[in-house]
C-alpha cells in the first residue's frame, strides 16, 4: 500500500478578492486519483467575504444579555461575536439553544448549545482567531460549504475535497467533504493541525493516498 502523506501548502494571505477554487486548482496540479485536498474553513469564509469588523455590528439587548453565559474561551463570549452569530442563525434560535444548553448542563449533558444554535455558533472566530490582517475581524464559517467543496472538486482531478476546522487543541472538525470521504478518518489524520497556526500561511493541505488509507482503516474496523 502506498504511504499516506500530508503535505501542507503555503500560500500568500488570501482575501475576499481571491477565488478559493482557483487557488486550490493551482496548488493541486499534482494531485492523483487517490489524493484529497483540504482547506481551512476560515480561509474559505474569508474568500467568500464572510468577515465583519466590530464597527459593522450594533449588538442588541439579547446579545448583551446572553454573551455573559458563554465560557471565556468561546468566540461568542463577547457581544460582537454573539451578535454576529445571532445575525446568521437568528437571535431567538440562539437564545433558545442557550437556555436548553444551560438546562442540559444541569443534567450533565454538555454541548447542547452548539448543537442547537446552528453551524455558525461553532465556526465563528472572534478577533485574534485568524491571521493578520483578519485578526481584527469576526470571521464566519463558510457559506454553503457542501456546495463549495463540490465547486472546488469540479476543478480538480482528485479523490475529494474537504473543508476543515482544525486547531492546536486537538480539535479537527470536518465542516464539509465531497462524497466518498470518511470524515472520521480524515479528522484523525488532521488532529495534529498540519495547517499550523494562521501566521504560518498554510491554509491548504494535500493528503496523498487518502483513499487507500481510508480503505485500510475501514477494513480494520470491519
Amino acid at each position: 500500500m502506498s504511504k499516506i502523506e500530508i503535505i501542507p501548502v503555503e500560500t500568500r494571505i488570501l482575501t475576499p478578492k481571491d477565488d478559493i477554487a482557483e487557488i486550490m486548482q493551482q496548488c493541486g496540479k499534482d494531485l492523483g486519483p487517490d489524493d484529497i485536498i483540504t482547506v481551512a474553513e476560515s480561509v474559505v469564509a474569508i474568500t467568500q467575504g464572510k468577515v465583519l469588523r466590530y464597527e459593522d455590528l450594533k449588538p442588541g439587548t439579547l446579545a448583551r444579555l446572553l454573551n455573559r453565559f458563554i465560557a471565556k474561551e468561546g468566540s461568542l463570549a463577547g457581544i460582537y461575536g454573539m451578535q454576529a452569530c445571532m445575525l446568521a442563525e437568528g437571535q431567538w434560535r440562539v437564545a433558545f439553544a442557550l437556555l436548553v444548553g444551560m438546562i442540559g448542563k444541569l443534567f450533565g449533558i454538555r454541548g447542547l448549545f452548539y448543537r442547537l444554535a446552528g453551524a455558525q455558533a461553532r465556526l465563528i472566530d472572534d478577533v485574534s482567531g485568524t491571521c493578520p490582517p483578519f485578526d481584527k475581524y469576526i470571521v464566519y464559517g463558510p457559506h454553503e460549504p457542501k456546495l463549495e467543496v463540490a465547486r472546488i472538486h469540479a476543478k480538480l482531478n482528485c479523490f475529494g475535497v474537504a473543508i476543515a476546522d482544525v486547531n492546536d487543541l486537538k480539535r479537527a472538525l470536518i465542516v464539509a467533504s465531497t462524497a466518498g470521504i470518511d470524515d472520521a478518518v480524515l479528522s484523525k489524520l488532521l488532529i495534529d493541525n498540519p495547517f499550523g497556526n494562521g501566521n504560518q500561511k498554510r491554509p491548504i493541505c494535500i493528503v496523498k493516498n487518502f483513499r487507500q488509507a481510508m480503505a485500510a482503516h475501514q477494513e480494520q474496523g470491519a
Partner: protein
Amino acid sequence: MTCGATTWCTTTWSTMSWKMIPWCTLALYVLLAILVVYYLYLLFAKLQGEGHFTFDVSKRSPLKVVRGSVHGVELSCQLPFSNDGKQFGALIDVFTRHYLPREQYDALEIDTDIYRVSDPRTEKYWDAKIFYVGEGEDVVINIRLVAKSGDIVTALAEMPDLPLDIFQKTCSRSDYYYERTYLTFSGDEIRAAVKEALDEAPTEEVTENE
C-alpha cells in the same frame, strides 16, 4: 377607589383563580418580576466583571540606543502590561502617538512605534491577541529621532520632554473602547542615553549603522 392589590393580598392562593386577579395587579407583578430579573442580571454582570489592561509605566526600563548615526538615533525601552481585570480581554490594536509639535521644537523628525516582545515587527502592525486574567507580557517602544539638519547631538541639545501616549483598543464582555496610557521621556534621559552610547562605542562604529 382602592387598588386591586389590596384584594389580591387578602386572597389566599388556595381560593384564588386567575379571573380573581385584577389585570393591573397582574401587570404590576409581571413588571416587578422583570425588574428583579433585570437587576439580578446587572448584579451578575457586575460580579462577572470585565477585562482591563494596565501598561505599567512605573516599570519602564531606561531608554537605550539600539542604533545610530551622525544624523539620527533609535532608542528603545520596554514596559510590561497585563490583564488586571476580572475577565478575558482582547487587545485589538495598540499604537503610539508622540506630542512634540514643531511649534515647540523643530530640530528633529520623530517617529515612534510599539510591539510585543513575542511579536517583533517593523511595519507598525499590532496583531490582535486575547489575554486571560493575569496574563500579559512586555512591549517594546521605539523612538527614532533624526536631525532635520546637522548632527543628532546638536539637534538634541535643546530638546524638551517628549510626551508619548499608548492607545489601546480593548474589548472584553462589553463594547470595545479606547484607552490611553501617558508616558513622558525627558530630554535629559534621551540626551543621557545618546551620550552613553557615544561613550561606549567610538563615533565611527555608531556611524557604521547608518
